């Protein structure tokens, strides 16, 4: 069964007809040709499909496109308009925070979300004082980024990259 929806992806508006079963991930990759979000597990376990969905890091393999008519989406590609890298992307480069790169767009979008959540004072499972300030310790970054798996295990460099971007 089909439905017509509109999406705003990386600053561009699109109207498209989708099957009700289509996920946002498949709509972006297969219909709009935006292959920045990756399909890893397709079950919400790996984080490769992470984008900013209406401003919040989200897994679009678990989002039905029809349920997000009118959504505003920023992918890792859209974080670098006109080729100018986002501070998180620049930090990933400088810290060598990837090997094969497949999980990287999801890691980058997730890190952008993490830094925003920290700026808003959101605690995490490892935050000592629930109502106090949050510091970007190794433990905080690891906990907050635990939804993004890296099969190459580049975590040792991802954590400093997130901290570097957060320090700016």
């Amino acid at each position, binding site marked *: *069964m089909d*439905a017509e929806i509109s999406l705003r992806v990386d600053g561009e508006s699109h109207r498209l007809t989708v*099957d*009700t*079963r289509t*996920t946002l991930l498949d709509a972006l990759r297969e219909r709009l040709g935006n292959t920045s979000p990756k399909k890893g597990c*397709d*079950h*919400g376990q790996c*984080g490769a499909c*992470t984008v900013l969905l209406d401003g*919040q*890091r*989200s*897994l679009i393999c*678990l*989002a*039905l496109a*029809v*349920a997000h*008519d009118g959504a505003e989406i920023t992918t890792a590609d859209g974080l670098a308009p006109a080729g100018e890298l986002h501070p998180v992307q620049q930090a990933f480069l400088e810290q060598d925070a990837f090997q094969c790169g497949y999980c990287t767009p999801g890691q980058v979008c*997730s890190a952008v*979300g*993490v830094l925003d*959540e920290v700026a*808003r*004072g*959101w*605690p*995490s*499972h490892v*935050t000592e004082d*629930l*109502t106090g300030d949050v510091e970007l310790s190794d433990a905080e970054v*690891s*906990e*907050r*980024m*635990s*939804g993004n798996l890296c099969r190459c295990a580049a975590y040792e460099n991802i954590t400093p990259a997130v901290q570097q971007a957060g320090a700016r």
Partner: protein
Amino acid sequence: MKPFAYAHPGDVAEAVRDVAAEPNAVFLAGGTNLVDHLKLGIATPDLVVDVRTLTSREVTDLPDGGLRLGAASTNSEVAADRRVRERYPVLAQALLAGATGQLRNMATTGGNPLQRTRCVYFGDVTTPCNKREPGSGCSAVGGYTRYLAVLGVPAALPDPTAPETCIATHPSDMAVALAALDAQVQVLGPAGTRTIPFGELHRLVGDDPSTDTTLEHGELITSIDLPPLPAGTRSSYRKVRDRASYAYALVSVAAVVSGDDVRIALGGVAHKPWRATRAEELLRGRPLTDHAVRAAMDAELAGAQPQPGVGGGNGFKIPLAARTVVATLRELTSEATR
């Protein structure tokens, strides 16, 4: 994925009418569990009714001093709410112990308690499962029981062919905290509104493993209310798991201590969040010494049934639950005297 019709009604009343009118209809909110189940063939609805933008996304103060969590508020937003962090730390901690940042940004207050079990056989459509396919049997008996129940199950080795056999656990962390807080679930259904005490939202298996809750078809959670807590109340959530992050609980404990009153709920041990009412009775009005808590938990767990299985089964959960309650209450009482 089986084809389905999608509806996005104008308001909650219409959504309830839509679902009530179609026996094979489901509500959709954050989708983190349902969309996965659509892909796996575990959920095969004819109609999906989207309520994500219909219920309130706000956390509001109640006249009695409690808080109302709108059904569409996300797990992230509730955990970050300053009133929740200050007055109901057990809930903020439980939410933050669950899933990942991305999933918490999507999962909702109304949806989280309605997520289904993570029993591996429920998730595998090639295996018999009384919860997924009533009457087909239970593949978990003697199988991979590490994450499965020890309380509320009839025997240490139930009949795997019996239609009532199910040793699944409820996976939610949030629900364990809500059980300890005596939250109230506000529901809208075809017959109107009603309030369900949180402890009565979920059911034990009984003779029907396929049904997780006491909600009727078409009933929608519109909000969950947190009752006010007496001044000086302390609360905490402790989760024991196989990994430091992003793993379901082997055992979890939500504890709320107000004066002489102590409330304890256990996760990861039963088909529903398990209120340790026997232990609570034994501890009411008594000093919460390690010895007293240990004895109370031994009484609570006297009827527990270790399930044999792969890797030694799940009998380890019984002493683990007792020790985790002791540790949680020790931390809460030492905070009070600090």
